[in-house]
Every structure is written in structure tokens, then in C-alpha cells.
């Protein structure tokens, strides 16, 4: 994954988030405070502006700047959590073109940073419930000889399943936890935005991948 592809990933995330902003806010309205879409959209719009004209010297630079911007523009729970995750990814990717295992390591560093900060574990009905299975799928796809594109695609699918799995959970972290048993039956907004982020990765890596059609 090189610098342009990383940029494309982030701008694609921004576009997706903008499109899905109302949906995310609606999910947050059911078990939260109806701002997750607005928060994420404010953050990623700022990220796009911050990356515009920014001369990154490494893949990590792009992700670090993404994370820093999220921290300083989003607020709420999602700002520090996603911001920290992107910053953690950025810190471990100092090349201009990093290989697939580096990306896997970065994604892992991101999850670790996020969990260290937010103390959520799988089953708490949070970002972690989409992110953790996505990371696992990414790793095992690579273990099975997959490409960046196939790993990202597997990760996106796993994130989607993880996200769907949050519906049955009772929240133990974040604002939804205040609802107690009433949080059950609603899909977690943060897990949903995590899915969108992995889906964007799958999309851009697929487009960038050498054509796999029998050539």
C-alpha cells in the first residue's frame, strides 16, 4: 500500500461517511445521542481538508494526520477512539510503500490503541465488535495466501458480520450502556462506521489490485 492508495482510502471513507451520515445518526438516536453521523462527517471532512495539499513522506504520515485531525475535530467518544487508532496505525508505517503484513500490523496497532484507550472488549457492543473480527479475517486471509485486496475484502465482510452481531448485544461501554437491557435489539453506530471504514479499504484496494480476471 502506497501513499496515493492510502489517501484514496481515507477520502473514500470520507465520501462514504458523508453519504451514510444520516444513517449513522439515526442508529445513534435509538441508543445514543443522535450525533455519530454528524461527528464522523465533521471529522472526515476536516481530514480531507487537512490532507489536501499535504506533502506526506510516508504512508504513516497520511494516517497520523488523519488521526490527529480526528482527535482535534470530532469530540465525543468516537473522536479520541478513531483518532487514536489512526494515529497508532500511522506510527508503525514509515515507508512510502508498505507491504501487506505491515498493513496488518498497523491495523493491529490501531485496535490495540483503541482498546487501551476505551477499555472495550468484544461483546461490549462497540467499535471493537466490528474491528476485532475484521483484523482477524485480514490476518488469516493473508495467512492463506491472500492479497491486500482479498484480505481487505475478508475484513470488510467480517466487520459487517461483527456489526450485525452487535444488535443482539447489551451494551457495556459508551452511551448505549445507560440503556441496560433496552440497548439490545439495536445495531451499534460505532461498529457500523467501522464497517464502512473497512468496506472503503476493500473497495480501494480492489480497484487498485492487478486485475485478477483471466488475462
Amino acid at each position, binding site marked *: 500500500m502506497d501513499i496515493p492508495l492510502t489517501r484514496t482510502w481515507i477520502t473514500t471513507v470520507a465520501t462514504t461517511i458523508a453519504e451514510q451520515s444520516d444513517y449513522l*445518526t*439515526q442508529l445513534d*438516536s*435509538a*441508543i*445514543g*445521542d*443522535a*450525533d455519530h*453521523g*454528524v*461527528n464522523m462527517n*465533521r471529522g472526515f471532512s476536516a481530514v480531507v481538508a487537512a490532507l489536501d495539499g499535504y506533502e506526506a513522506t510516508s504512508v504513516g504520515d497520511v494516517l497520523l494526520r488523519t488521526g490527529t485531525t480526528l*482527535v*482535534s*475535530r*470530532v*469530540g*465525543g*467518544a*468516537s*473522536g*479520541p*477512539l478513531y483518532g487514536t487508532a489512526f494515529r497508532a496505525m500511522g506510527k508503525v508505517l514509515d515507508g512510502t510503500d508498505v507491504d501487506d503484513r505491515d498493513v496488518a500490523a498497523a491495523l493491529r496497532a490501531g485496535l490495540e490503541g483503541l482498546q487501551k*484507550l*476505551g477499555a472495550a472488549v468484544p461483546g461490549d457492543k462497540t467499535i471493537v465488535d466490528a474491528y476485532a473480527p475484521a483484523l482477524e479475517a485480514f490476518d488469516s486471509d493473508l495467512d492463506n495466501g491472500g492479497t491486500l485486496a482479498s484480505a481487505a475484502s475478508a475484513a470488510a465482510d467480517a466487520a459487517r458480520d461483527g456489526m450485525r452481531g452487535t444488535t443482539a448485544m447489551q451494551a*457495556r*461501554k*459508551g*452511551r*448505549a*450502556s*445507560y*440503556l*441496560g437491557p*433496552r440497548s439490545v435489539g439495536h445495531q451499534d453506530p460505532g461498529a457500523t462506521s467501522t464497517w464502512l471504514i473497512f468496506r472503503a479499504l476493500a473497495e480501494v484496494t480492489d480497484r487498485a489490485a492487478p486485475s485478477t480476471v483471466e488475462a
Partner: protein
Amino acid sequence: MKKFINAPDDVVREALAGVAAAHADLRVDVSNQIVVRTDAPVAGKVGLVSGGGSGHEPLHGGFVGAGMLDAAAPGEIFTSPVPDQILAATKAVDGGAGVVHIVKNYTGDVLNFQMAAELALDDGVRVETVLVDDDVAVENSTWTAGRRGTGATLIVEKVAGAAAAEGQALEAVAGVGRRINESSASFAVALTACTTPAAGKPGFDLPDDEMEVGVGIHGEPGRRREKLLSAKEIVRIAYDAIQSAKPLQPADRVIVIVNGLGATPLIELYLLFGEVAAVLKDAGVEIVRNLVGNYVTSLDMAGMSVTVCRADDEILRLWDAPVRTPALRWGT
């Protein structure tokens, strides 16, 4: 959605412009969303900073002034402020004696204040954090996000503000703030959902004969939904919840706040206060100070919260100390 606004995205900044125009003794940085006392930093005085999502006015900006907060960092509607903002507020009020962060216990608030405190420390500012988690509707547990911070925040800000004003040191100011939090319990009931400008419609639908019991101040539904009851019965529910979480004893002296969530008329709040007074009297608990009004709101939510804080002489002395802010003012 019916609101006196121009555009949903501009509400917080335009309201801050109004705060700036209304209060000459506050320094309002509209674009960075910081409200600071004009005389800050006061050399040698512990600085007090609070903040959180907007939509809870007068909390926190309305409590900035002599004897209470030195600065407030209001975030977007129901969204905690960002670290940069909190850091800027912290540095603006550091008079060399350190700064106390008064933080309501929500994941977003906690994380953003924590990041800001780390950045402040990097810049050589000592920060103590007082976490407010008085809402007994939520059960406490180390496995969850724990209890929310609501009405007691005002008491923490007032009492810690008075301690700072009289020259107490950083740890002492934070200490009395924490003591207030431990001595306080709140419980809220909503009759309607609120509408954030961004969402444009109420956060939940509530039939005309039902209420949300154990509701928070961010438009989220409560712990449970019940048939609408009389004021007397509702106060009883709140009292029972408080009693089972943080029992009051006969002869306890308490500060009571009957707080409106934004769309409940004062006449109803006074009626509720009368019911609270009756219940506490029966329990042998003495109300020694009180507030009745809109202090910690939730936009246009019709609802109320009751906060009870056990108070000793020291706390009462600090409560009675002069305060001069837009929303709370007494003494000389």
C-alpha cells in the same frame, strides 16, 4: 423540527456569539468555542475548567465567573469538546497553581479531557480531574461506562469554585469536588424526547400517556418506560432510586436541586419541589439549601431531575460563598 436557529451546523457558534454579546465579563472565543473569565488567569489561584457537549445550558458557560468556573469548553450539541479546546481553556486559566478539570462521566468527555490533561502536563500545567457520576438511574460497575454525570455537576462547580476562590490548593479543591460527587445522587424523568438540530426529529417516540424513567441528559431513552404518573408518584420513584443507591439518613442535611430539562415550566418545577420537600420531611432529612429551575438541561426535553447532596458545615460555607456568573449569583 421547530427551533430558533439559522442552520443546524452553526447553532453552537452563533449561541456563543450571543453569550459574548450578553456578558461583558466573559471572554468568548467563538471559533475555538471557549468561554473564559475576563480576569483569568488569576495568579496563584487554582483554575477550574469544565466542559461537555452543548445543549445543557446554562451548564457550563453560564457558570463561568467569580467563585465558580474559570473557563468552559462547550462542544458541539451533545458532543464532548475536543482536546485542543480543553487544552486552550486549561492554559488560559492556569495561574500557576494548577487546574482542576470537572468532567461528567461519559466516555467522550472522559477521553477528550484525559487527552487534554496529558497535553497540559506536557506543557507543564498540573491537572487534577474530578469525575462526576451522580446519576443513580445507572448502576455502577467497573465493567461498564458507569454512572452518568448530571445535576451534581453544578454543585461540584460551585463548591470547588468557592474553594479555589479562597485560595485552597489544587489537591484540596479537587478533593472537595470529589467529596461533593460522592455525597450526591440524581435521578431524572422525561415526558418528551428532545430534538437535536442535526437529527431534526425527536430521539424517540413517547406515547402521550407514557414517560421515560431514569433518563439521561443527551436525549437517550431512559432505563425504562412507564405509564405517566402523578407528580407525587414520580417524586417517590426518584426518591426510592436515590435511597436505594445512596441512602439518606434521618437528620442528614441536604442541598436539593429540582432541575428542569429544558421545556418544563417553572410552575411544575416548584410543584415538584413541594413534593420533594414533603418526602424528605417524612424521612427526617433537612433541606438546608435548594435550587429550583433550569440548570442542567437537555435542549427542549420536557422533564426534570432531582439532585440531593449531603452537606456538612464546610460544604455549606463554600456553597454560600459569593458567586457571580450569568446563571448563578449571590453574595457580595
